[in-house]
């Protein structure tokens, strides 16, 4: 049945996230928090995450264009991104953030910028994958088995 197909599709999408390591077990943890009262909890979380992270990324990218960007400032933003990315299970994004911070700690501004670009790519990729997933899920919401 169609709906069954859709659900399979949704499940497959989900599995691919783990397989590709785009998401980690923290994401599963978030899923476990969902219940009758908060059936779309994960989606809500990601909505918030995407909204704030996009802003942060834009800030940092903007700053990078200016001469006055400082490593300290970038580090602050990266720290913020790290916390939220870790909390939602955004694995690849988190990895890139960590790599970038290491480079930043060594004082390498250019390297840091490059790292931020990489991170941004992962972030965009994550968003591109998850948004359709949530949409599909939302559209076909039924108690799903984990």
């Amino acid at each position, binding site marked *: 049945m169609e709906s069954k197909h859709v659900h399979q599709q949704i499940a497959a999408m989900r599995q691919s996230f783990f397989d590709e390591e785009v998401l980690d077990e923290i994401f599963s*943890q978030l899923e476990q928090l969902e219940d009758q009262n*908060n059936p779309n*909890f994960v989606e809500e979380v990601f909505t918030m995450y995407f909204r704030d992270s996009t802003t942060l990324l834009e800030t940092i990218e903007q700053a990078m264009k200016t001469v006055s960007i400082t490593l300290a400032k970038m580090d602050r933003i990266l720290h913020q991104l790290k916390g*939220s990315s870790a909390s*939602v299970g955004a694995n690849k994004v988190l990895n890139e953030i960590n790599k970038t911070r290491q480079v930043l700690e060594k004082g390498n501004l250019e390297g840091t910028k490059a790292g931020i670009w990489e991170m941004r790519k992962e972030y965009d990729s994550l968003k591109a994958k998850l948004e359709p997933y949530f949409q599909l899920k939302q559209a076909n919401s039924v108690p799903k088995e984990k």
Partner: protein
Amino acid sequence: MKNSSGGKGSMSTASSITTWKAGDVVPVPDQFPAGLRVLVVDDDPTCLIILEKMLRNCSYDVTKCNRAETALLKLRENRNGFDIVISDVHMPDMDGFKLLEHIGLEMDLPVIMMSADDGKDVVMKGVTHGACDYLIKPVRIEALKNIWQHVVRKRKNEWKDLEQSGSVEEGDRQPKQSEDADYSSSVNEGNWKSSKKRKDDEDETDDRDDTSTLKKPRVVWSVELHQQFVAAVNQLGIDKAVPKKILELMNVPGLTRENVASHLQKYRLYLRRLSGVSPHSCNPNNSFMNPQDETFGPLSSVHGLDLQTLTATGQLPAQCLATLQAAMLGRSTAKSSVPMPLVNQRNIFSFENPKLRFGEGQQQHVNNNNKQVNLLHGIPTTMESKQLTSLRHTSQTIGNVNMQVASHGAQSSQNNSSLIEMGQPLSRVQILNDSTVPLSVGQPIVPNGIAANVSTRNGVPENIRAPGYNLVSQTSSILNFPMNHASELPVDTFSLRSTPGMSDHTSKGAFHEDFNSEIKGSAGFLPSYEVFNDYQYKSQNWELQNAGMILDDSQHSNSLQGNLDLTQSVLVQQGFPSGQINGQNRSVPIVSKAMFSAGDSTEPGNLLNVNHHLNTIRADNTVRVKSETVADGNPSNLFVDHFGQEDLMIALLKQQQGIAPAENEFDFDGYSLDNIPV
């Protein structure tokens, strides 16, 4: 633990715990830890929402906040409304550690820190600031499931402390007393020993560990007591001061070595913070203008806290302060990191003795003419030296200052600047209010009851940047007054802005427009910190009653009294040689210290002490009020640094003592220490 429940009494948790554990009984308790009231603070909305959900899933009763200040507000509004707090380390409006300190001091709740940062340093910082745990993000629900243990543990410890202290007071410590019968002299000693032993033996303890920051002796560290403590410490030398010797020097019946050890630990942390913080500590030229940064640094947090507290309470009577301090020391289980103790102590100085306190080194601008003693309430965090300078007080009466202060006080939210009137000698109390309060330089010398108007402002959260030095500055000025000059106010040295009322002291130091208080001389004039005592501690505002202070405006009760006290205490302790007091000598080391000891006695002798003390302090100053040299340092620096914390401590202590039913003990808004330029 079978609690008696009485113990913590009403801690339903305690009973709950008991019952919960026992499993029998229970109607409600049975559910523990369900219903644990958690306050979670994180500026990241994503993390916040996740945590909230996780905590709800643990059956906890969750309140979330995305700003530290809001969190503090909620905590203050409903002091007993939460069982535990979880807070992020990096937040834009206030550093998580500062929040931690505030909470520890004011509400004494267990606080768990969390961060994506797992570096050893930051985790260590959590430890030193008294966090009961540190979680690394991403936080797992499993980690949250067990947070109730911190609540239980803390209560258990408190209970034990109560028990322990209670027995001290009663002179009958069950467990302890018996132990070593060596001391026959006083029950205390016996207790001391036994408690020590008990301490060693007890392991349940996390609080018994004598280095533990969790320990909370329930001794009330009154102003006088703290003064004695500081005096003893200074006498021994901070490095050599060991609890046993301090105890002996203090010779206070009923005090245990354990109490002293715990207090010392806090004091040390406070000192460390002070010294770490400001780069220029005694810069004679530090004018108030420079405030803050320096000393406020570390102090800021503490001070801020302190000041706020103090101010919040309005004028804290010296005793209150002392009490607070003691309480703080005692209570801050985790707070050991908070140097508050010192602060409180300062506050404890009562203004009654119009001793001038030297703001450590801050130049106190003492207007000799005025009788007012400007006690700078070192509201560390709040008062910035700049502010102090701006406080300049032109009018003679403290009252004026008060007004001004008060008005400024308005700035800060709860903190009201309360002018503390110093008792006799001090004529001027510099009131530091965050920034705009003009400081009236009290007349340093004071024999005539100087009213030290201390207007403390409760640390206005953001505004007060003044380095809580308000008090400090005050002290400095105060210190400058050589105690021995009865007539001549040492104040001379202070270039306090004193109005004509002052007798000839003249502000020698030229009155710097900027700073109100310059501590010029080493007049160790201790303002009567006792003034604080007079102030009634009102539940949200500490009102300083004037002990002689002109200040009557207690609009804001938040007085820095606490701060002052501290300073005073500090001053007192120091006892300077009278020789030192001399005018222009700016270096008022820790004025406050000196004052402190002298504090109680208004006699000239005190001044001497103060001076001496000041000098001494300078030397080793750790705690000193930041600017050692009075010179034209920022009075604020002087005081703030010192005062703030001490005063706060004192205030806190007092509060804890239950001096005032203040609901918020420190009624200050979480001021952001960040404001203090460090």
